[in-house]
């Protein structure tokens, strides 16, 4: 059984919601990322999403764009990101790690080589933002062969037929993008999220995590009421941005930001 499936099953048994923080690997410097991962787990993360820095993150808002730029100042590469996961795995064999990024860095190294190294370093899942399900057949079999879950995005604009097609190919969990926009956008409309999740659940048994627009305990709890998991990214990354001059305090700040969300989610049951 995959680590992601195990984690979501366990949460379900405990009637708890998954808390899924996202940070960009290598931000503000590659030496801190593994420490941040451990701090986030301690603060209550169930799954970690680790962003692969890309020069042209066209689906991301300014916060993640700048995080990519900070990571790329130190040339943080896809291979280095996976080495960070290997380092993390030395002391955490349990928490699933999902790599999230754009196709080109994977394409340039070849999907076969990527999948092999991902498996070897302890990566559990891959979410390629700009890989639509229509284009995915050249990639999915290789990723699956190496035990990697393939996580897909669903959006407010996804019609029912697309939801069905995507649900068929996805594994691990589905990531519902709560709004039309880029990462870090401000508004979150819980009613429309609730309605869309009901539509999605008609087509899948997979857990559905919701991301985009979750920045604090209140918004995490609101989404947690209707989703299986809550993804929080820009709110954490902006802590890194604000305090990049003082990287020593960042792990603590990230934990402080995440812990109230954990508490709010655990009060839901």
């Amino acid at each position, binding site marked *: 059984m995959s680590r992601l499936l195990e984690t979501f099953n366990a949460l379900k048994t405990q009637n708890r919601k998954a808390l899924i923080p996202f940070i960009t690997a290598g931000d503000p410097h590659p030496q801190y990322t593994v420490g941040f991962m451990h701090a986030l787990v301690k603060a209550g993360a169930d799954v970690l999403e680790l962003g692969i820095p890309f020069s042209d993150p066209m689906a991301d808002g300014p916060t993640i764009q700048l995080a990519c730029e900070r990571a790329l100042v130190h040339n943080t590469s896809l291979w280095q990101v996976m080495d960070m996961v290997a380092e993390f795995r030395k002391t955490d064999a349990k928490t699933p790690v999902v790599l999230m990024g754009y196709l080109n860095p994977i*394409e340039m190294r070849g999907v076969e080589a990527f999948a092999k190294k991902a498996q070897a370093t302890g990566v559990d899942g891959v979410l390629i933002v*700009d890989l639509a399900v229509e284009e995915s057949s050249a990639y999915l079999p290789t990723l699956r062969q190496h035990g990697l879950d393939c996580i897909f995005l669903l959006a407010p604009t996804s019609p029912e037929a697309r939801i069905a097609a995507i649900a068929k190919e996805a594994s691990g969990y589905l990531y519902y993008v709560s709004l039309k926009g*880029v990462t870090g956008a401000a508004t979150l409309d819980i009613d429309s999220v609730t309605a869309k999740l009901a539509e999605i659940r008609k087509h899948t048994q997979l857990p559905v995590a919701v991301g985009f627009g979750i920045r604090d305990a209140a918004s995490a709890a609101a989404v947690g009421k209707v989703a299986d998991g809550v993804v929080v990214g820009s709110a954490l990354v902006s802590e890194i941005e604000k305090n990049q001059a003082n990287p020593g305090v960042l792990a603590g700040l990230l934990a402080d930001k995440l812990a109230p969300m954990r508490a709010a989610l655990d009060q839901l049951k």
Partner: protein
Amino acid sequence: MMSYEYPDAGGHYGPYGGQFVAETLMEPLRELEAAYTKLKNDPAFLAELDRDLTHYVGRPSPLYHAERLTKAWGGAQVWLKREDLNHTGAHKVNNTIGQALLAKHLGKTRIIAETGAGQHGVASATIAARLGLECVVYMGAEDVQRQSPNVYRMKLLGAKVVPVHSGTKTLKDAMNEALRDWVTNVDNTFYVIGTVAGPHPYPMLVRDFQSIIGREVIEQAPKQIGRQPDALVACVGGGSNAIGLFYPYIGEPAVKMYGVEAAGRGLNTPDHAAPLTAGKPGVLHGNRTYIMADENGQILPTHSISAGLDYPGVGPEHSWLKDSGRVTYVAADDDEALASFHELTRLEGIIPALESSHALAYAKKLAATMGKEQSIVVNLSGRGDKDIFTIAKLEGISLL
């Protein structure tokens, strides 16, 4: 006639093209394709497009025999397809009119565009003014600096110009920002992409709108040259003017075609913008195509004297035409383009855009290898008025 039927149903040109965007945009792209498929055979839509191209743009554009240039180059007869004479001064308007009419038929009230040199931004702002649409143009902060006359033009036309400060602050970053705007405002907004790149159906529909260039040459050539030309030459940044000239000729194997990329400071330096000549296949801006990227997949900064060619990708159909061997892709550097800029200006009284000057630079070499009874059509994709400040600065002349 060779058979050539691209793209396929998924928007692929061989292994290139396709749709590589975040999920939110997939359905809007499908809607756009459905609307276009319906409208492209709708007589009322086509009549509206044709009326605007004739009376607003001033088409057909002339095919001009550059006799003094021909003599100076000492080879094939040189003919210029005068897209520089279009309203707004470049071929870009052929496409913006088509897409803006699509926007109107889709009920969108706001158009957005990315621009490099500013020509596509001006063409978008122009048609937005003409149709009463709100218009926002994204432009790399560096390009805003080097193309200030076009920025002012867009503002005069009522468009909002947003300088983009992320990444390399050039065309690719403007395109990222336009995609972000589109994903956020997709309900009321139409993204008018300026070149044959981006996700399907954009490369196809921009090609179809620009193909008016080649279709006119096919009609003009027998009357003026006496037969079809032996060679076509066009510059390639994203590649819209080139595909516009080439596409109607793809099934005519006797007509050789040459796409000229920007070699910048030289292909042996990192400072160029020639993905077809010196890049490799990858995925950027929604399609698989030749790009300039490092071994880790990060997109590389590019350089060209011409802002309109300063882009690390290229339309996916060009990638396919390269691999299939139908079109030969070459490159001309900054100095060669500048020399051709001056040569055409002085010999023919036509000031070419720096983009088009790259096509002229290669045509000069090609003409010299051909006989006087042969002919070349060079796509003069735009006029150079916008570039005179850049050139004056390079030559140390102050215009203020």
